[in-house]
C-alpha cells in the first residue's frame, strides 16, 4: 500500500505539509498567534516555547519539530531578549531545505509592524511550500506513536489491546511504532524486558521503569487508587498491563528519549521521565506533552486512546482518537475516529477494531482528515526537562 508523501531534503517523507509559526518566548505569543490567525483555514499552525531561560531539552525538541517531515516552512517569532538560540534554530531549518525566517519584535518596532512583517512572509511561504515535491511513501517509512489519556475501566480492555493489535500489524509490515509511559509499567519490568532484542537492551528497559518508580515516589504519586478496584482492577500489575498492552506483542527494538529517532523499523519504548534529581516538577503535566515528545521523535501520527472522552488533537501530526467506552462514544461521536467500545457492545472484537485502526492509519497517512483535525485542534506544549544522552545499548544495530 502506497500513498504520496511530501519529500524532504534529508530523504524523510511527511504526510502533512504545514507552515509553522513559532514563538520563542511567551512574550512573543500574541504576535505569533495574530500572524497565524490571519491564515485560518490554510495549513498554518502555531507552536511555541513559553520559557525565557535556556533549556537544552526544549532547544533539542524545538529543532526536531521545526525539521519534522510534516513541517514545510517555519517562521520564528522572537521578542528579542529571550535566551532561545534563534539564530542556530533558523540556520538548522534552512539547512534542512525549508524556507525559514525570524521576526524580532523589538527590531520590527513593536506588535503591529511585527505582525505585518510576519503575515507578509507567511503569504509568500505558503505558496512556496505548495511546490514541495511529493513521492510515493509506504508503511516502511511511517512512524506511529500511541498515548492514552482520560482513561477509565474500559481503556485497558478495549481500545488499548486493540491498539496493540494494530501495532502488531504495523511492526509486521516493517513500520515503526513507539509507546511510552514507563510510570505505568511498574510491576511489568520483567515481562517487558524479556521482549528486548538484546540482553543489554533488556537491562536498559528495566532501568527506565525503575527510574520512573523512583521519580514517582519522590513526586508522591499513588500508583493504585481505590477507585481502580471499584472498576474491577485487582492488582498494580493488572492496572499497568491495561496501559502497557497498547504496545502489542512484537519484540522491542530499542529505547529512545524525546527527540531521539528510531534507527530502523520496529517497536520502541520512549522514556519520558527526566534523568537526574527531579528538577522541574512532574515528568509530564498533561497528555499533550507526551504527544509533542513523540512527534519530536519523528511520529507522523498518534493513536490516542480514551475512555472518559478526551478531545485533544495536536499541531504538526494528526491524532487518531480511539474511544474505549461505548457510552462516551455515543455522547462524543464527533470527536472520536474509532469506536472500540463496540467490543463491549458485542458488535466488534479486539481483532476487528485492531484491523479498523490499522486501516485508519493508512487512510490518514494518505491525507484523510481525522476528527480532531476536522475540528481544528492544534494542542501544543513544550516544557522544561533534563535528559542525559542514551547509552550505547539502547539502540542495538
Amino acid at each position, binding site marked *: 500500500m502506497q500513498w504520496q508523501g511530501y519529500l524532504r531534503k534529508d530523504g524523510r517523507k511527511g504526510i502533512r505539509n504545514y507552515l509553522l509559526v513559532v514563538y520563542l518566548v511567551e512574550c512573543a505569543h500574541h504576535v505569533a498567534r495574530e500572524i497565524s490567525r490571519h491564515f485560518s483555514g490554510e495549513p498554518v499552525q502555531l507552536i511555541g516555547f513559553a520559557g525565557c531561560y535556556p533549556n537544552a531539552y526544549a532547544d533539542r525538541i524545538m529543532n526536531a519539530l521545526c525539521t519534522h517531515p510534516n513541517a514545510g516552512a517555519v517562521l520564528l517569532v522572537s521578542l528579542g531578549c529571550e535566551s532561545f538560540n534563534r539564530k542556530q534554530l533558523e540556520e538548522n531549518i534552512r539547512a534542512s531545505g525549508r524556507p525559514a525566517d525570524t521576526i524580532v519584535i523589538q527590531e520590527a518596532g513593536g506588535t503591529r509592524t511585527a505582525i505585518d512583517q510576519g503575515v507578509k512572509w507567511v503569504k509568500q511561504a505558503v505558496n512556496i511550500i505548495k511546490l514541495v515535491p511529493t513521492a510515493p511513501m509506504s508503511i516502511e517509512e511511517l512512524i506511529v506513536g500511541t498515548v492514552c489519556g482520560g482513561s477509565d*475501566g*474500559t481503556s*485497558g*480492555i478495549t481500545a488499548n*489491546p486493540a491498539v496493540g493489535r494494530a501495532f502488531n500489524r504495523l511492526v509486521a509490515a516493517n513500520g515503526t511504532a513507539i509507546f511510552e509511559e514507563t510510570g505505568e509499567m511498574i*510491576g*511489568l519490568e520483567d*515481562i517487558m524486558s524479556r521482549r528486548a532484542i538484546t540482553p543489554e537492551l533488556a537491562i536498559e528497559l528495566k532501568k527506565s521503569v525503575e527510574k520512573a518508580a523512583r521519580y514517582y515516589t519522590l513526586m508522591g504519586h*499513588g*500508583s*493504585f487508587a*481505590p477507585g481502580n*478496584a471499584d*472498576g*474491577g*482492577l*485487582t*492488582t*498494580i*500489575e*493488572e492496572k499497568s*498491563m*491495561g496501559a*502497557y*498492552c497498547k504496545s502489542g*506483542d512484537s519484540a522491542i527494538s530499542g529505547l529512545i528519549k524525546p527527540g531521539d529517532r528510531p534507527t530502523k523499523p520496529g517497536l520502541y519504548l520512549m522514556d519520558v521521565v527526566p534523568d537526574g534529581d527531579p528538577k522541574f516538577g512532574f515528568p509530564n503535566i498533561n497528555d499533550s506533552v507526551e504527544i509533542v515528545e513523540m512527534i519530536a521523535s519523528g511520529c507522523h501520527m498518534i493513536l490516542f486512546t480514551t475512555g472518559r472522552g478526551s478531545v485533544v488533537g495536536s499541531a504538526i501530526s494528526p491524532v487518531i482518537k480511539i474511544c474505549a467506552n461505548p457510552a462516551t462514544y455515543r455522547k462524543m461521536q464527533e470527536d472520536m475516529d474509532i469506536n472500540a467500545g463496540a*467490543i*463491549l*457492545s*458485542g458488535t466488534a*472484537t*479486539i481483532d476487528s477494531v485492531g484491523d479498523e485502526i490499522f486501516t485508519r492509519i493508512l487512510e490518514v497517512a494518505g491525507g484523510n482528515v481525522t476528527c480532531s483535525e476536522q475540528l481544528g485542534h492544534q494542542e501544543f506544549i513544550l516544557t522544561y526537562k533534563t535528559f542525559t544522552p542514551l547509552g550505547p545499548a539502547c539502540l542495538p544495530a
Partner: protein
Amino acid sequence: MQKPIKLHPLDNVLILTDEQLGGLAGIGHKIADCLIREGEKIIKYGVPIGSATTTIEIGEHVHLHNMKSDYIPTYTIETPDKENNN
C-alpha cells in the same frame, strides 16, 4: 446481556462486558474461565497479574477476596494498613 470477553488466548479469566453476577460485578471485572487452584497465577492479557489466594470455581468473580498481587499489596479503603491481602 453481552458475553464476557477473553483478552488473550492464554488467559484464565474473562472480562465482564455488562452488569453480571446478579449486579455484584460490573463492566471490567473478571470471572474465572476454568478452575483455578490456590497459588496458581491469574492470567490476563496473556501475563500473570497476581495469584489465587484460594480455589476459584469456574464462573466465579475474581477480585481482592480471592487473589493478590505478586508485586505490591493492593491498597483499598477497607484495608488501609495491616489487613492488606499479602
